[in-house]
């Protein structure tokens, strides 16, 4: 008898513990990449407050963060994201190819569906003891570079392409010279973490390496979290314009009946209020007139090139550099 009641209690506990999101509650799942945790925490609170101020019920925005490529894979495998806010367009393209997102998602929102921008900078130890000023310095022998693995990390792909694009822009340069620089750079990178956050922790907490190739926002976050006394942001003479895009996952929102809510959530990212939040978190707002001047002043104005200009877009860049046996595999010796 007692044994039976224990089993009964266990079953009741498990039923009570598991409540799928109730239908009447307004909720969205935002599947995002690694360094946006702090950004979306603020944005979600602002969105819910704005909805309440407009006389509607609050919205519970649930968050999932991880390496951009892996997150895209999870959405394809059935993670019920209402919206995706990933590190690069290529990852949203993959979801679109699986039929979950409309093919022309780029045109669904302003600025080619990228409500904020960023770039890639160098984070070095205080005082810059190895005197690392530009991408070319990273190829010097004896320099230890920390960057994630481009196979799994969106940020890592931006890092790679930023170095490549800089090398191409040097006087008298060509593809072979760019390839030589990037090859030397990865020869100096002994640890390739799977995501941007992993690399940041390797560099900042475990104190490994001379330089971290980082999202601009991630680099400033390190200064804020680990103390500006220990690190220094170095802007290279030229870097890449990263445009992390957003999209509504049509197949999920249709099923859950959240199309309108998901749309208004992503539109909210372009409002003056959120553009201000974006700058506060060290991202580059697409409408800088709405951001605080002191937030913008921290982000240095350097020449930025786009992936479309130099590489012909994500599809081409992926095929040429990151696909199996493409350039990245060749220069790291993983090609077969």
């Amino acid at each position, binding site marked *: 008898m007692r044994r039976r009641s224990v089993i009964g209690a266990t079953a009741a506990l498990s039923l009570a513990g598991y409540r799928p999101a109730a239908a009447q509650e307004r909720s969205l799942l935002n599947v995002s990449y690694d360094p946006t945790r702090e950004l979306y925490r603020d944005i979600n609170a602002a969105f819910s407050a704005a909805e309440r101020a407009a006389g509607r019920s609050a919205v519970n925005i649930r968050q999932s963060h991880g390496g951009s490529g892996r997150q895209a894979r999870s959405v394809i495998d059935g*993670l019920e994201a209402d919206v995706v806010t990933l590190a690069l367009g290529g990852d949203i393209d993959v979801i679109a190819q699986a039929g979950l997102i409309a093919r022309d998602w780029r045109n669904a929102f302003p600025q080619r569906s990228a409500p904020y921008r960023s770039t890639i900078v160098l984070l070095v130890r205080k005082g810059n003891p190895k005197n690392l000023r530009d991408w070319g310095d990273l190829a010097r022998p004896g320099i230890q570079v920390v960057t994630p693995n481009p196979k799994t990390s969106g940020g890592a792909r931006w890092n790679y392409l930023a170095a490549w694009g800089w090398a191409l822009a040097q006087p008298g340069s060509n593809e072979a010279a760019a390839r030589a620089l990037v090859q030397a750079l990865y020869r100096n990178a002994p640890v390739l973490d799977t995501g941007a956050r992993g690399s940041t922790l390797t560099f900042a907490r475990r104190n490994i390496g001379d330089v971290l190739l980082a999202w601009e926002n991630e680099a400033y976050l390190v200064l804020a979290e680990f103390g500006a006394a220990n690190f220094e942001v170095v802007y290279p003479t030229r870097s890449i314009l990263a445009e992390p895009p957003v999209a509504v996952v049509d197949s999920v929102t249709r099923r859950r009946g959240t199309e309108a809510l998901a749309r208004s959530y992503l539109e909210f990212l372009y409002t003056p209020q959120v553009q201000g939040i974006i700058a506060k978190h060290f991202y580059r707002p697409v409408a800088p007139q709405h951001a605080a001047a002191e937030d913008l002043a921290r982000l240095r104005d350097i020449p930025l090139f786009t992936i479309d200009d130099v590489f012909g877009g994500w599809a081409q860049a992926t095929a040429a550099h990151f696909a199996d046996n493409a350039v990245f595999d060749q220069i790291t010796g993983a090609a077969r």
Partner: protein
Amino acid sequence: MSGHTRPALRDPAPLAWALVGFALLWVGVFLVLPLVVVVTEAFARGWPRFIAALQEPDAIAAIRLTLVIAAISVPVNLVLGVAAAWAIAKHEFYGRGLLAAFIDLPVSVSPVVAGLVFVLIFGAQGWLGPWLQRHDIKIIFALPGMVLATIFVTLPYVARSLVPIMRRQGVEEEEAAATLGAGAVTTLLRVSLPNAALGLLYGVLLTNARAMGEFGAVSVVSGHIRGETNTLPLHVEILNNEYDEVGAFACASLLALLAIVTLVLKLWLERRMRLRAGEGS
């Protein structure tokens, strides 16, 4: 301790001391030191921060999910494990060796691979995915998938603890019960299980510890939705990624506590089992 009755091998004293010293050093560096680090880091900013970290809604959700998953998968594996152990230890049938080998399979399969297998079966692109989606049944990236992954990973422990004990006891008592007219179920519940009760507890203990601590397989099928599909070990990873060291170590210290309680219970059970074996012979 009954160790004194049987003397150890007669190694020369310096060698014996060196071996003991090495073993202690090994245990200290690889087991005790990490545990001390976890606890000191958890309390690095004092009690209030520690308590606050555990009262955070996402932490509470993670603790609850971990308990729910264990509360489902441990009883399931208890039943499966008892049935399998009874079949393997007390019965002769074709394919017995194969069954024993299959039960051990989860120990040798990488948990990540185990998780991926469930994604391949139940994922949207998997074998059953389209059917599940049509009927609005969520397995992967929800509780059912996480429970399935945990059951898979913890499957062997009950059977593994029971089989050797049941084997050692032989089948005489079961045969006597059968002669007296007891059915199979009565024999199992009244004879075989009570005789192996300590082994059963031991198995449940290990199953529970592994179920609550599992990371790899559960990580693959979780989807990492904050406050929803994060177990305690996954929550520790998230907090660490968010530079919240105190929070991460506070949650990790709960898992460390679980490990210590498990260890103490395990020692106690082993002692009881040795005593019981002593009485028998």
